[in-house]
């Protein structure tokens, strides 16, 4: 018969190996399984904890949000003074041009529930899900600009794939519309902070430092006009073929606390292009 200590040691080793095997299995499981397991856990065992965190986030930001809302309401009230005249003018012009009514789309506001592991920022947990109208592949914007897209949804939560994730891609265009390309996170990680790259720019086109980059609307996920970032320089170039530009993103996934989820059909009001210099 084995001594109790030895039996315990064997049991410890067996338990450790089992946990290790399950962890490695989870690491290499198909993505669809991973998201299904994570979503099930969030909507069952972890649901009370997420509700607790959502409440904490709401109460932490409630005073600041109240002050912001009051300021926004005042601005909106001032702007609304001229609204009836503008609406009337707009409907007359649309009738003259034979245009249909402007599409109205629903935007879902959501709170970001940050977690403590270091990969928080590549994906983010939102406190809104299918019940609130959030669907996969909808664009997510922070107040500063594009943050990412909805990766998976549960009944009351959803996961955002942010621009800092290696799988992120978005069709982009410079603000004046002259240069198009694809943005994705820098793969070489030489920068101290995660940066974006504007790839696929023809060699003959050059983009000045400081040029704003926005979404082009191609691809059906991100509506046109979402601010992405500003060009800070050339990352690398293939002689005679293409240039890759380094873009500093506007939104910071690690710091953002509130976001808007918007469907791809939305026409986002893009910022006015810079005035041409004399």
């Amino acid at each position, binding site marked *: 018969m084995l001594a109790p200590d030895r039996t*315990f040691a064997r*049991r*410890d*080793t*067996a*338990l*450790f190996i089992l*946990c*290790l095997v*399950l*962890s*490695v*299995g*989870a*690491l*290499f*499981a198909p993505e669809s399984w*991973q*998201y299904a*397991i*994570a979503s099930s*856990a*969030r909507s069952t*065992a*972890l649901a009370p*904890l*997420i509700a*607790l*965190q959502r*409440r*904490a*986030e709401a*109460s*932490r930001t409630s005073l600041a949000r109240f002050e912001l809302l009051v300021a926004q309401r005042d601005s909106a009230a001032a702007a609304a003074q001229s609204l009836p005249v503008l609406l009337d003018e707009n409907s007359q012009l649309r009738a003259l041009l034979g245009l249909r009514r402007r599409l109205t789309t629903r935007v879902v506001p959501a709170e970001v*529930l*940050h*977690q*403590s*592991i*270091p*990969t*928080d920022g*590549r*994906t*983010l*947990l939102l406190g809104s899900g299918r019940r609130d109208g959030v669907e996969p592949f909808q664009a997510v914007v922070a107040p500063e600009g594009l943050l990412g897209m909805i990766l*998976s949804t549960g009944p009351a939560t959803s*996961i955002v794939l942010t621009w800092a*994730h*290696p799988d992120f891609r978005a069709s982009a265009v410079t603000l004046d519309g002259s240069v198009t390309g694809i943005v994705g996170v820098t793969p*070489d*990680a*030489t*920068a*101290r*902070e*995660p940066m974006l790259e504007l790839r696929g720019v023809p060699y003959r086109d050059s983009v000045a430092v400081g040029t704003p980059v926005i979404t082009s609307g191609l691809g059906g996920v991100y509506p046109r006009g979402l601010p992405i970032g500003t060009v800070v320089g050339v990352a690398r170039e293939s002689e005679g073929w293409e240039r890759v530009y380094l873009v500093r993103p506007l939104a910071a996934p*690690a*710091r953002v606390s509130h976001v808007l989820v918007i469907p791809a059909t939305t026409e986002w009001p893009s910022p006015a292009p810079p005035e041409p210099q004399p």
Partner: protein
Amino acid sequence: MSAAQNRRIRFSLVMLLLVGLQFYVRPRLGYPRVAPDFLMLGLMIFAIRSRPGAAALAGFIIGFASDALTPARFGAAMLANTLVGYTAAWGRAVFFADNLLVNAGFIALGVWLRDLLVLVASGTGGSELLVQLGVWSPVLALTTALAGVLVLAVFRDWLDIRLEE
């Protein structure tokens, strides 16, 4: 109720308190990258007074919760927390002293090691890895260790951890 049952209940209450702190208090503590990680603190305290197998299982469960909430690389936190829990329970048996500062250092090391394993398993490399491990992880480890000192000092009798006076 026996003394052992009493101890178990008190220990479970402290663990529940840490879970509550993680989800209700941590979001109010400012920048999320540096606010103390109470789940990790719970794992380290559990590992200090448990057998390696149980600590590995606790690490696996906490890792599963972390991966479900941040599935940037599903399975990375499970793997990291399992390894940290098991190693911490063994480490305590080999060189652990009953001193508050050593406990704090042990907790900080556990947090930093967890971050290292999660980042490596997630395929993070280059400068981003260095910045994370050289700047953010040490600060997170420090704040978690400070929270650990407080919890250990307040609940030392409930946790059954012998500390030098």
